[in-house]
């Protein structure tokens, strides 16, 4: 099984070609150009470095959100166009899970990915390893058992998230681009139990999207491209205002 993985949910644009035991090629940029300019040339580059074409792929994994609305749509539209043209399915990978996988072995701690959602909020969810022995170890040939998500994906204030986690009284590893904004707050709230992942793991790369994507593909979770849409976790501001006025969205 060979897949292309695409990540464009934040500032980073990344593309990777991967199979079960290894990443064949990966390309990541964070240079301030729009994903619209960088993503498809990068996909072309990883395919040609891996000496492949789109027709050699079994599926396309796309980071499905939450994240930047426009960034997600560029990734989704690109994946949909490739999938429709090549007649292959899409795997819509939860962005927060891909970030959590990037932490590596969590040693029994909870993993809490946090993505900057602006407006003083983060997109977040909690993950736990299924099996403490190498489930996300990244060792070649090991079974990367998927992480289990505890509770829902949410957009919420950092203070609320920290209060909830403090009440759980568990050790937690934080990862994601919002660490750059909230590191001090997390350290202060954790009382030694909150750990920060290295910054190198905080910007999501397509290789991590591929890892989750291959798990999903093998467990039959690939879907038709037309059934894929990004997961925003938020309504548009026009819709929010309409609800606040007590009107229906129609």
């Amino acid at each position, binding site marked *: 099984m060979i897949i292309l993985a695409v990540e464009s949910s934040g500032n980073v644009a990344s593309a990777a070609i991967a199979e079960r035991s290894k990443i064949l090629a990966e390309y990541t940029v964070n240079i301030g150009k*729009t994903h*619209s*300019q*960088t*993503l*498809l*040339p990068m*996909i*072309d580059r990883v395919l040609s470095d891996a000496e492949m074409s*789109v*027709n050699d792929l079994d599926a396309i994994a796309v980071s499905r959100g939450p994240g930047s*609305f*426009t960034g997600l*749509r*560029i990734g*989704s*539209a*690109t*994946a*949909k*166009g*490739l999938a*429709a*043209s*090549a007649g292959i399915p899409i795997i819509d990978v939860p962005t927060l899970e891909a970030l959590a996988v990037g932490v590596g072995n969590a040693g029994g701690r909870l993993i809490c990915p946090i993505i900057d959602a602006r407006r003083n909020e983060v997109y977040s969810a909690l993950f736990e390893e299924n099996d403490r022995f190498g489930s996300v170890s990244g060792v070649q040939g090991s079974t990367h058992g998927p992480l289990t998500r505890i509770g829902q994906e949410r957009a919420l204030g950092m203070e609320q998230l920290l209060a909830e986690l403090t009440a759980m009284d568990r050790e937690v590893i934080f990862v994601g681009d919002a660490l750059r904004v909230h590191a001090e707050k997390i350290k202060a709230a954790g009382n030694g139990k909150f750990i920060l992942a290295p910054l190198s793991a905080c910007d999501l790369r397509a290789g991590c999207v591929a890892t989750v994507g291959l798990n999903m593909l093998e467990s039959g979770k690939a879907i038709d*491209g*037309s059934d894929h*849409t*990004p997961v*925003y976790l938020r309504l*548009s*501001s*026009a*819709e929010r205002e*309409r609800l606040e006025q007590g009107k229906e969205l*129609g």
Partner: protein
Amino acid sequence: MKENEDILILAVESSCDETAAAVVKNGREALSNVIYSQIDIHTMYGGVVPEIASRKHIEKIDPVVSEALRKAGVSKEDLAAVAVTAGPGLVGSLLVGVAYAKAYAYAAGLPILGVHHIEGHIAANYIENRELEPPFLCLVVSGGHTELVVVEDYGRFRLIGTTHDDAAGEAFDKVARAIGLGYPGGPKVDKCAKAGGRKDAIAFPRGHVDGNDFDFSFSGLKSAVLNYLNSCAMKQGGPVKDLREKREGDVNFNPDALIDPETGVTVSDVAASFQEAVVDVLVTHTIEAAKSLGIGKVAMAGGVAANGALRERMKNDCEREGIKLYYPSPLLCTDNAAMIGCAAYYDYLAGKRHGLDLNAVPGLGLGQKI
């Protein structure tokens, strides 16, 4: 090499609130023209909401494209190229079409062509008028554009007149809102005016721009309409907004209830007189430009070109002046992908191709190249 010599282009358009795809044969024949309109959603908000439009595009792009291929009875192997609107338009909306079309073309091994949305509107005239060829003069009128363009050749345009403030369609939307008709303004004003409105009831001003006889201005006209409405309302005991809110409370607000007690002017008169002022300026400028440049062929393009009053008046005046007039059927006046495939055909023949880094250009001006 393709076995037949026909050049088939798959075109995608998502610049505003319509998700559209078409297959166009040899630049003149639309084998399919699929449009998913989001108008019902945006009507609830009184205008296009960019984020909602973008979200709808990503939901609809796959089914719209596959429907276009199915209706045309072609598969990707039959195609010569993929074309997509690159601008101008709403950036979030444009990006969905651009990213999708580029990826589709790349995976199919086909060239990609970014198309200018307004060049597409102009090219819509070629689909139903096979004999039409440049040079001709084109009046482009839509919610975002009011332009007089000399189409010198395929892909060669000279802008000779443009609006200094509102686009004609924008003026329709604003006046429609003020007289309680709602969105979209163009068709609603047209319908209201037809319902017994007298186009000579009120003498609204004709906008003129000093220094260029072919330029347009609609903000003065819009203000004149608002001032007129307010003066009527004051005579009835309050500003227009208050009257409307009062009436919304008891029954569904009936705009016709707003009558000038002294002159007996009704809202349908306002709609008809306003529309007449817009149409008068558009037609007069177009005819004068055609005469002064010695061009015997005039075309219209864009959503407002579907307006009944504009079509009728332009037809009369062109006939009187011996000018041959072309305009697309109403469906091809609104945003669609067939017009994009048509415009792309001539770029394709000229050898134009874009790279995988083709981007959306929301503020693309007419005559500017992608």
